[in-house]
């Protein structure tokens, strides 16, 4: 901006500030976002002068989608309020789902217990002590039938946090649909199906990279033909951020994972214009509202560029980055847990201002235990208050044009592109993971963060400042899953094994044969096996024998 009046006003402001600083210095010498991006005192028209609006910001629903993937956003309809839930047995979780639907949740999100996530039946020795703890235990189609009892699968969309055994759980969902008389093409939902971030940050991997990528691309292919409304993958930065990454790293490593999946599917002969439409993403929402909003906007723009320029994608739907958000579990404190409600509110606001397609809000007690029904309700209400009362939903991308938000959007995009370039130089994300590159970066950031809290450079209210001596959790009713859940589940499994007949045996042989032949799609074969009640652990067992197991790569 070259306007004389502007220049004069700016000069006056700056000299006044500089004079004032001697008497009243600012709180810190320098300011930065939680992720370390420097924050200036003031952003003004000068910081936007170089930006071409149409090129870099544009209009919602149009390339490069900086302002959102739909043209009317929340004026049309709100995001899907999707609360991640699951614990104990299928019966207990089914009851929780029905409660959530009554309370106005608009989508289900299944949390599986660790044995299910890692492909062990509940009676496997490695499953001891874990049944039903962090999610619901699913051993076979019989459990899945109970999980969705009296929930019509054509009336809800369901997201399933399942990765290494994603094909099996998807197959069970399809089979439940069949029993309800709902064809696969009518089913809507998402499987996480993102193995790379398991290697990097979350740890529930089973198989080595090559067969894992084959399973993923088999799912892309199968769903493209049979379950067209299904989001075949949720490429997740959430857990990368939880593991300690910065916002820039979250975007960079997530999109780098995305690049690896698109490349793998392309190499298999699939058309990115087609499968690209069913890719979805999953990000974290932290307290730093401005940085987070900029992060989502930057991620959308960068992904659109990647799909268009790197992969030659022309279909706009396949260039769009659609994402789910979850508020940041790692920001919740065990101290003064009521404060977590406020943190979650800020995070919700950030996700909504950033244009999320669906959202899970954490409950205040999650640093202490699994959330109780009461605290889940407050978490859901938080979303509803932002949706119905805050007014930020009445206009599209309200923070666009904010000098600071646009500047941060540019900086996050550039920072992430820099990491992606480095990953390309290392030979792509698989090679980078093998070398421990993303892991090391995340661990360094996590350790720096811990040190900053201990030095007081970062303030966490109630933890390193404004502490009280009260018993923080006193009076809070925490949800507990007792060990009898495991015994009950094992008894159920035993009964199933006795009553299911023998058909599963030959279906398992078919799975083994398919595993050996790269050109056979594994999903239909797995579907046949789950229909006759082959268990998840049995199917994964066969695949473990054929594919081997991944061993983590530690760089400390």
């Amino acid at each position, binding site marked *: 901006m070259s306007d004389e009046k502007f220049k004069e006003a700016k000069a006056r402001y700056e000299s006044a500030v500089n004079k004032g600083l001697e008497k009243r210095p600012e709180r810190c010498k320098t300011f930065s976002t939680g992720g370390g991006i420097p924050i200036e005192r003031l952003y003004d028209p000068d910081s936007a002068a170089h930006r071409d609006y149409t090129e870099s910001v544009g209009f919602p629903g149009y390339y490069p989608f900086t302002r959102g993937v739909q043209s009317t956003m929340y004026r049309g309809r709100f995001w899907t309020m999707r609360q991640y839930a699951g614990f104990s047995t299928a019966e207990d979780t089914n009851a929780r789902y029905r409660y959530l639907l009554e309370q106005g949740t608009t989508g289900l999100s299944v949390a599986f217990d660790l044995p299910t996530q890692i492909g062990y039946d509940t009676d496997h020795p490695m499953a001891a002590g874990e049944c039903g703890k962090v999610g619901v235990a699913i051993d076979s189609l019989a459990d899945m039938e109970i999980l969705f009892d009296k929930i019509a699968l054509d009336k809800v969309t369901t997201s399933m946090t399942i990765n290494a055994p994603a094909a099996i759980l998807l197959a069970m969902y399809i089979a439940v649909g069949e029993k309800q008389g709902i064809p696969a093409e009518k089913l809507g939902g998402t499987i996480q199906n993102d193995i790379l971030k398991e290697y990097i940050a979350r740890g529930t991997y089973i198989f080595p990279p090559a067969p894992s990528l084959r399973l993923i691309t088999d799912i892309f292919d199968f769903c493209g033909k049979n379950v067209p409304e299904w989001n075949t993958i949720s490429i997740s930065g959430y857990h990368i951020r939880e593991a300690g990454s910065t916002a820039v790293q979250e975007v960079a490593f997530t999109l780098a994972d995305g690049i690896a999946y698109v490349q793998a599917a392309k190499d298999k002969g699939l058309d990115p214009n087609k499968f690209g439409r069913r890719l979805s993403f999953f990000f974290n929402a932290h307290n730093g509202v401005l940085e987070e909003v900029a992060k989502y906007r930057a991620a959308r723009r960068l992904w659109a560029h990647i799909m268009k320029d790197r992969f030659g994608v022309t279909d706009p739907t396949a260039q769009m980055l659609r994402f789910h958000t979850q508020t940041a579990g790692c920001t919740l404190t065990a101290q003064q847990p009521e404060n977590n409600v406020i943190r979650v509110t800020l995070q919700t606001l950030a996700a909504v201002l950033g244009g999320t397609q669906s959202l899970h809000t954490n409950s205040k007690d999650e640093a202490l235990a699994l959330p109780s029904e009461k605290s889940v309700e407050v978490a859901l209400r938080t979303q509803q208050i932002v949706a119905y009362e805050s007014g930020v939903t009445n206009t599209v991308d309200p923070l666009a044009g904010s000098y600071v938000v646009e500047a941060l959007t540019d900086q996050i995009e550039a920072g992430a592109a820099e990491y992606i370039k480095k990953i390309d130089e290392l030979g792509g994300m698989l090679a980078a993971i093998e*070398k421990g590159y993303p892991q090391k970066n995340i661990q360094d950031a996590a350790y720096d963060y811990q040190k900053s809290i201990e030095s007081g450079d970062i303030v966490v209210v109630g933890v390193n400042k404004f502490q009280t001596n009260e018993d923080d959790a006193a009076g809070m009713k925490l949800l507990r899953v007792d060990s009898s859940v495991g015994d009950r589940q094992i008894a159920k499994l035993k009964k199933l094994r006795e009553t299911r007949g023998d058909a599963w045996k030959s279906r398992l042989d078919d799975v083994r044969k398919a595993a050996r032949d790269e050109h056979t799609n594994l999903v239909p074969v797995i579907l046949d096996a789950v229909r006759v009640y082959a268990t998840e652990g049995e199917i994964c067992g066969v695949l473990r024998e054929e594919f*081997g197991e991944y*061993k*983590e790569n*530690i760089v400390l």
Partner: protein
Amino acid sequence: MASLTDKALAGDPRAVARLISMAENRDEGLDSLMKELYLAPSAGKAWVVGVTGSPGAGKSTLTDKLIEQLRAKGERVGVLAVDPSSPYTGGAILADRLRMQRHTDDSGVFIRSLAARGSLGGLSRGTREGVLILDACGFDVIIIETVGVGQSEIDIMRVADSVCVVLVPGLGDDVQAMKAGIMEIADLFVVNKADKQGADRLVNEVRAVLEFLQNKDWVPTIDRTVAETGDGVPSLVENLERHREYAKARGRERERARMRARIEDIIVDRLSLQASKLLEAKEAEILPAVMDRKLDPYSAADMILAE
């Protein structure tokens, strides 16, 4: 009550572990225990294999697969996995055994992680004495896994009967650029991650260097492995076994040099300990004079040694 050595010789893993700690800690009570161990009837039988190479070469994964193969042959296997200590804090994160953890359920395997503890790349005392301890306690094979830097290359020859040097393509393990030392200590070369690009070139480079060694009575072998899957490991084990026989037949000449080195190590250790003590006792008295340049450090040393 049975003594620590009795317990260790009887196979109590806690006692074995404690003895190794005493060695690491330079515990003064250790020497007398080591005397017993050295003369124990079970001692002196182990085959000591060194596995050395750059960080990231896959040594731990390879060791994991070697353990598997050796156990299948009924050998009891001890592993000493050495990692560097932080020069600033003296602390260390020892994560090599992570890749071998499945063997912890097998009482025929004993794995011990050792931090280098200021031994500047050489083998730590814990490693040298650790071999002796595991040997006396009935382990048939002892694998020392160590990063091939600095002095440890030479040290490993003094301790191991068979030395495997692990190379990988794409890690800058360019044979031409490699220090002469590491090429000379190898009895066996392993090109690991042999499914990666550049493996053929690396094998050829090693082969080219070996041309010059044709006159030796043992020409180092070259094995291609993919430790992750176990591919190529059986052939490596065969070559190792051949070298084991060769080493046995090599006779007393190398053994003599090795024992000489061990005695020298012990003398140096003791003298250096003594030196520290002498210095400590006189330090307060003599140091200020040297710092004020009233006394030269050479005369100071004479004075301390004269005690």
